[in-house]
């Protein structure tokens, strides 16, 4: 199984100040629903990301409440108005207390 909580961020290479840019983020996570069973009938316990926080500089710009119905290895695209040079930090939290985060520096020209 691949490592849980590995985060990949993709965004435009050069950003001009004030531009609204898409940010693609992928995180590896099984997103187990708790509804599936193994072949011998045992329930696989739920294990999923239920919260995502996105910070730009000091502000939380986006928050997501997720459920088991978000696909495994969640991929999302959100938009960001790049009006300052600041770090963009993405934090995922799962129902077993796991916290996974990644930061990229935004340097608009």
């Amino acid at each position, binding site marked *: 199984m691949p490592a849980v909580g590995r985060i990949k961020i993709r965004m435009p290479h050069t950003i001009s100040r004030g531009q*609204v840019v*898409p940010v693609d983020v992928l995180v590896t996570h099984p997103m187990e*629903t708790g*509804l*599936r*069973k193994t072949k011998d009938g045992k329930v696989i316990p739920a294990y999923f990301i239920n919260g995502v926080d996105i910070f*730009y500089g000091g*502000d*939380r*710009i*986006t*928050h*997501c*409440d*997720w*459920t*088991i*119905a*978000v*696909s*495994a290895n*969640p*991929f*999302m*695209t*959100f*938009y*960001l*108005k790049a009006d300052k040079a600041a770090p963009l930090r993405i934090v995922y939290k799962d129902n077993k207390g796991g916290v996974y985060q990644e930061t990229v520096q935004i340097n608009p020209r």
Partner: protein
Amino acid sequence: MEQKGKDLALSRRAFLKTGGAACAMFLVAGSLPSLVKPAFGAPKEESITDVLRRQFGGKQVSQSHVDIKAPIIAENGAVVPITIVSDLPMRSDDYVKRINVYAEGNAEPFVAGIDLTPANGKAEFALRIKMRKTANVRVVLETSKGKLYGAARSVKVTIGGCGG
């Protein structure tokens, strides 16, 4: 005897009308459990209308300003890419505060809620969701002024994605 029967009929009616409040009457009266049973059946899956009523209290949802981009046919219900786009403004005094995503065919229709701020610059969000069966994907946007906008789009699922 006849009188008792009448009371029962009345309290049954009251029970149906007022739900929980009338339960106590039944318990005190110790009357026919078979009458009570149907109301306490197995927990039902919540329908989309129930969920929307619970979350928005029956408030009117305007079916405009929201577009859902989703495949017409999803080959795999475990990964259905959807994009929610809205032309609503993202000004500091008037912006899309939250995007709620539902898959109507799922046992728990609520899929995700996304809180946005004006710093997003654009009311657009994409993610991949699981769908148990062919159903509508429904989106309800809440603006900072308390208005609700929505849209729905049918997605045909050929392989379900919620396990089991």
